[in-house]
């Protein structure tokens, strides 16, 4: 369990940068307008996008507190796949291309930096004990989708980790849930690709202790066309660019539960 890091009144949290430096820059610019006293990234800096090294200086210069996602853990350890666990050959094919490109284009210095990142954060937000994980507190690559994460599981995870609020990412689609006894779970979403709803914007989350917990999902618009063109120029699959241009996921669909899959186009 990560140690208590700091105490805050208002924080911004995002996940899944996926090498999307333009979306990251737009997110950080938006965050600067919101009077937050800390910014957290829940991991997965690479994947899908071009030029993965470009996101590192942005994160470091902004003082973002970053944890390892499964992608980062794989890159840091030299693993040969992203550990998303796809069995569908089509998803596996695109995941391999994405990971292989990211691995080849992430500098040794940045991979060393990834190795230094923690696996989670604990902070206090007003009276709330916040636990941040990439997938779940028990597995970095566990998918906590809105429609496959039972209240009973969340209660158990919070009990096991002595927390009031669980923050996670990894799935790519944001959600929040109020639980009994004033507890909460929030999937903070990702800023590297849209959330499969036909809109091109991405999302991050602002949490405030009022002292009750206030959760605000913030849409971020950015120049997705330039990012899509970079993907094409690098010879990455057209499907990755299409997702940014249309807001519909074209790959990595296998793990979507029925309800989330039905809301998408593919």
């Amino acid at each position, binding site marked *: 369990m990560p140690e208590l890091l700091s105490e805050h009144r208002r924080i911004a949290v995002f996940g899944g940068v996926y090498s999307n430096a333009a979306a990251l820059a737009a997110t950080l610019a938006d965050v600067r307008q919101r009077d937050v006293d800390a910014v957290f990234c829940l991991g997965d800096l690479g994947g899908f996008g071009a030029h993965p090294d470009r996101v590192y200086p942005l994160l470091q210069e902004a003082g973002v507190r970053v944890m390892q996602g499964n992608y980062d853990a794989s890159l840091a350890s030299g693993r040969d796949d992203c550990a998303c*666990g796809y*069995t*569908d*050959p*089509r998803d596996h094919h695109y995941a391999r291309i994405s990971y292989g490109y990211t691995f080849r284009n992430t500098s040794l210095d940045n991979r060393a930096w990834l190795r230094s990142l923690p696996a989670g954060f604990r902070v206090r937000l007003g009276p709330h004990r916040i636990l941040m994980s990439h997938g779940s507190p*028990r597995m970095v690559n566990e998918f906590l*989708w809105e*429609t*496959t*994460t*039972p209240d*009973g*599981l969340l*209660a*158990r*995870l919070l009990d096991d980790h002595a927390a009031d609020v669980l923050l996670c990412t990894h799935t790519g689609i944001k959600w929040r849930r109020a639980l009994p006894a004033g507890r909460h779970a929030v999937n903070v979403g990702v800023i590297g690709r849209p959330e499969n709803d036909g809109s091109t914007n991405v999302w991050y989350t602002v949490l405030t202790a009022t002292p009750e917990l206030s959760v605000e999902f913030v849409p971020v618009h950015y120049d997705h066309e330039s990012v899509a063109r970079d993907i094409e120029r690098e010879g990455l699959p057209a499907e990755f660019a299409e997702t940014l241009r249309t807001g519909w996921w074209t790959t990595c*669909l*296998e*793990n979507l*539960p*029925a*309800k*989330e*899959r*039905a809301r998408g186009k*593919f």
Partner: protein
Amino acid sequence: MTIPPPVLAPEGVRAPTAPFARLGALWIQLTGTWCNLECTHCLNASGPTDPWLRPLAPAVVHHALAEAERLGVREIYFTGGEPFLHRQILPLLEASLVVAPTTVLTNGTALTVATADALRALADRARYSLEIRVSLDDVEQARNDRVRGRGAFSRTVRTLQLLEARGLLPIVAVTEILREETTAEGGLYERFHRFLRSIGIARPRVKIIPVFAVGRLEGRRAERLTDAALEGFDRGMLQCAETRVVADGGVYACPILAGLPGARLSSGSLEAAFRPAPLYHTACVTCHRTGMSCRNF
């Protein structure tokens, strides 16, 4: 009732075990081995007459659901036999969907229009996802029906179309029983994706399942796992490290071995079955070798 000891490996040594890590999946062996089909490769030798494993009473299921919720279950599966033969399947699915995301495994041959409508309504009301997993073994009628029984193919295809028309996005489960006969280009996935699109399934979802030497295929192999064979292997990766099955007679370690005395871990509560599972069966070799999980994905 006393719990039987693990079955010993052929050499006379105690079977290796898998640790219990968490309750990831609760399986409900709802109809035992009662099924309207009698597939040649059935994992638990289900059939229409004299099921060797009896169906569960609704009270047993409700008790298991309540216990699983308290224990933080992540997902629930209903299987058999053929779960849609159970008179209470719909209310039980509804109760399960209050607790956790729920999957029902079916051969798709006994599902009516009214049931498909009811499933759509259930899925709409539920906060969690309802998954319907339909078994089909080949995209050609004659080959499929040779292993699943005459008429199975056309009824299953109709069910897939009923579910698709209601936006329920079924998962098609395919065993590898006929893989060696497949000569078309592309693997099983591609073959099934093409076929499913041809019958109007816009977003095919396919799960491939290896063949296990259990049920009607029991006895083809006598291989067993040993501690030596598992040296250096993370046994927490096996699905019995995070799966428990409620079936007639108690709680078991594995959906494939439900009902077999060697796989029974408790004759009562679910929580009492949170202990290491003996890897005593030849099916355990297949799980170890293939990384097989009975979960959807």
